[in-house]
């Protein structure tokens, strides 16, 4: 296996959790909800994924644990912001703090324990192909799921009525309500989907990326996922490109250091955020881009009058 191939393999591993979390948050934001608690949902997903794999012995069941726990966190967020109309920004930040604390408490017993790795599925023949074999056909199931999610989200958002309703609710919730759309129901479902994706992204970290539990192991990836959604101007395929770009930047910094290139690692870690700010500046200069892609009701609470 060549050095280049191994770099690409690590890029995929680094990009997948970003992609999973960001594609979920994209749907949430398209429905007009700003959930800043991605980091919190991810870390709970990570610890519960680890715990689930330990308890059942199956990393796949661990991934299911991660997914369900992310949804649980999202349900809490949904109840507070959609039902009780709490401020979304404050609630999202609180969700992150809660997730970090909660995961530390749950994970105390798991620190230092060896984890169960979710291994790649080796597709016979195809994965033995030279060069592209391992890369394309030897990945774990979550990598394929993340790519399928991008395609699925893109299709649903822009080609189906359900997606049209999600975008409509995010663009103008009052009008959507007037048309008889249940705004809260759509947003609950979107928030739960986002939570499932974030939980799974966390599970990926503790089951694939580094199969063990370390406190705070998400290390800001939830925030990068949030930045990615803006970076991608709320378009699924750009989220895919952005996740792999940010993933590559993260991996390259290790290789750059190994080869003695004198770029401070802090600079490389800050790069995704710098890129996001640059994109924000560019899209806010272009009002058509902003208006067509930014959900106009993003972060605005909805209270129906009746």
């Amino acid at each position: 296996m060549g050095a280049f191939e191994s770099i690409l393999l690590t890029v995929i591993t680094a990009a997948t959790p970003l992609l999973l979390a960001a594609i979920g948050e994209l749907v949430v934001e398209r429905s007009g909800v700003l959930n800043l608690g991605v980091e919190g949902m991810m870390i709970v997903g990570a610890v519960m994924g680890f715990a689930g794999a330990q308890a059942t012995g199956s990393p796949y069941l661990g991934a299911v644990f991660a997914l369900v726990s992310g949804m649980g966190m999202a349900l809490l967020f949904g109840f507070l912001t959609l039902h009780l109309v709490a401020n979304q920004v404050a609630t999202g930040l609180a969700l992150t703090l809660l997730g970090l604390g909660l995961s530390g408490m749950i994970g105390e017993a798991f620190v230092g324990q060896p984890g169960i790795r979710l291994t790649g599925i080796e597709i016979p023949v195809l994965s033995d192909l030279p060069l592209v074999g391992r890369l394309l056909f030897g990945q774990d199931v979550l990598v394929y799921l993340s790519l399928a999610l991008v395609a699925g989200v893109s299709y649903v958002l822009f080609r189906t009525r359900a997606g049209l309703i999600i975008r409509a609710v995010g663009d103008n919730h009052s009008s959507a309500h007037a048309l008889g759309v249940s705004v809260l129901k759509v947003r609950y479902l979107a928030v739960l989907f986002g939570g499932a994706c974030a939980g799974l992204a966390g599970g990926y970290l503790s089951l694939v990326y580094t199969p063990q539990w370390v406190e705070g192991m998400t290390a800001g990836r939830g925030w990068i996922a949030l930045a990615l959604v803006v970076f991608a101007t709320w378009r699924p395929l750009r989220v895919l490109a952005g996740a792999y770009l940010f993933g590559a930047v993260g991996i390259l910094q290790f290789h750059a250091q190994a080869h003695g290139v004198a770029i401070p690692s802090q600079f490389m870690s800050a790069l995704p955020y710098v890129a996001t700010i640059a994109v924000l500046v560019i899209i806010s200069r272009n009002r058509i881009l902003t208006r067509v892609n930014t959900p106009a009701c993003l972060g605005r609470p909805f209270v129906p009058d009746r």
Partner: protein
Amino acid sequence: MTVDDTTNPQHGVVGERRGTVLLDARGITKRFGEILANDTVSLTLRAGEIHALLGENGAGKSTLVKILYGALDPNAGDLVWQGQTVTIASPAEARALGIGMVFQHFSLFEALTVAENIALALPPDQSFRALSERIRQVSRDYGLTLDPTAIVADLSVGVRQRIEIVRCLLQEPKLIIMDEPTSVLTPQEADQLFVTLERLALEGCAILYISHRLEEVQRICHHATIMRHGKVVMECDPTKETAGSLARLMVGSAVHDLKRGVVPREGDVRLALKDLSAEAEGPFSVAIENVNLNVRAGEVVAIAGIAGNGQSELFELVSGERLSSSADAVTIGAVPMGRAGITKRRRAGAAFVPEERLGHGAVPGLKLSENLLLTRHSTGDGLVQGGFLKRDRAGALEQRIKTNFDVRMSHDDPEARALSGGNLQKFVIGRELDRQPDVLVVNQPTWGVDAGAAALIRQELIDLSRNGAAVLVISQDLDEIFEIADRIAVISRGKLSEAIPAQKLTRERVGLLMAGLDEDSGGAGDAA
């Protein structure tokens, strides 16, 4: 379209209403807290009838319409639809029955295309391509040109209304509710709408038509229900009434004709715009090109124009929200102010009232007295001393404005958002008039304001000018412009025509200028 007199219900026998009863609302009551928005209201709508619903702001029209459309639940009363008692629990149920609505503030999704907007309102049983084809067909049949693939954010207000109407028509409704449909249209666009409405009525559709404009109600409506303070006060045939008698029924007292007074001869120029130009700030903004205008003490000059032709951009340049490239471009009093900010311009004796009262003219979440501080903190009213607010003085001023301009509020010094549109407009205009400014620039002074309040505001604007101020009014309402203006200029695509004395102009000429078709351009004959 030629219509035989005998088949046109508009010319039917007095008092006799044609058509079968479609919707009968009986004893509708809706309570919001302590306010009875609808008090045992009854309304009968018939097939093929254009039925006007008249009333001042806050008379309960919108509440009633929302109940008919399923957006609000009544506290009491029955709705009988084609002989069956029904409960309309949601707009979707209303649409299923055959009730469609065209909203006053468009309920469109700006980020979506025309076809997507329409698809959302229809049952999900047809393909997108078939829908686009139906949109093209209906828009062709009714002369409502639409491109299904256009994104709404790029479209003008008139086109947006067409989307709403086509969306409504595709549901094949038996009843269409229209809330203030012409408030954003040019006279020509309104004429086009009336043709469509009359055709729909002939096809047997019932239309409930809400408007403040009595002249158009008389022109197209067959029957009128007039509401006041949540109750139905009168039903009549509007063609048998005069605009004056209808207004009296709505307001409950006579609306006095405006007292024009005399323009003092050749007052000093108080506001001068000289070669005022500004580039467009984005794809939805209009460039202002070489605007020249003098407004003299003692006169009211009005700028007519269709929305989106540079009115807001011009207003921003005059008020100082946006600076001009040269100081000479805007002169207030005798001082070049083109590079001065809004506070400096206010100190020089100018006052400004922007179009959007909630969010621009007033902060929704602040009390009225606090909103008062926002424009008058440094205009010599002593509201701020040593950096500290004098809240008692602001409160006293707020009381004075409330009394002088008849601002009605449920409790003392409420938040701006708690006021109805008309009352808030009286407040934001009163706030500036109360200063007795030398120059007043006001954008859309009576937009969405009822007849009584509009008459009060217009009279105040005239009185201010006759007391020696220069008043510049930007408006889309031609009735208003002809009522108050001494000279009229027309803005079209960011260019301002010469200001011409109002007596020398006709509505038709102004309408053509608004559409950018002056005689000079050579196209007027064909277009008319």
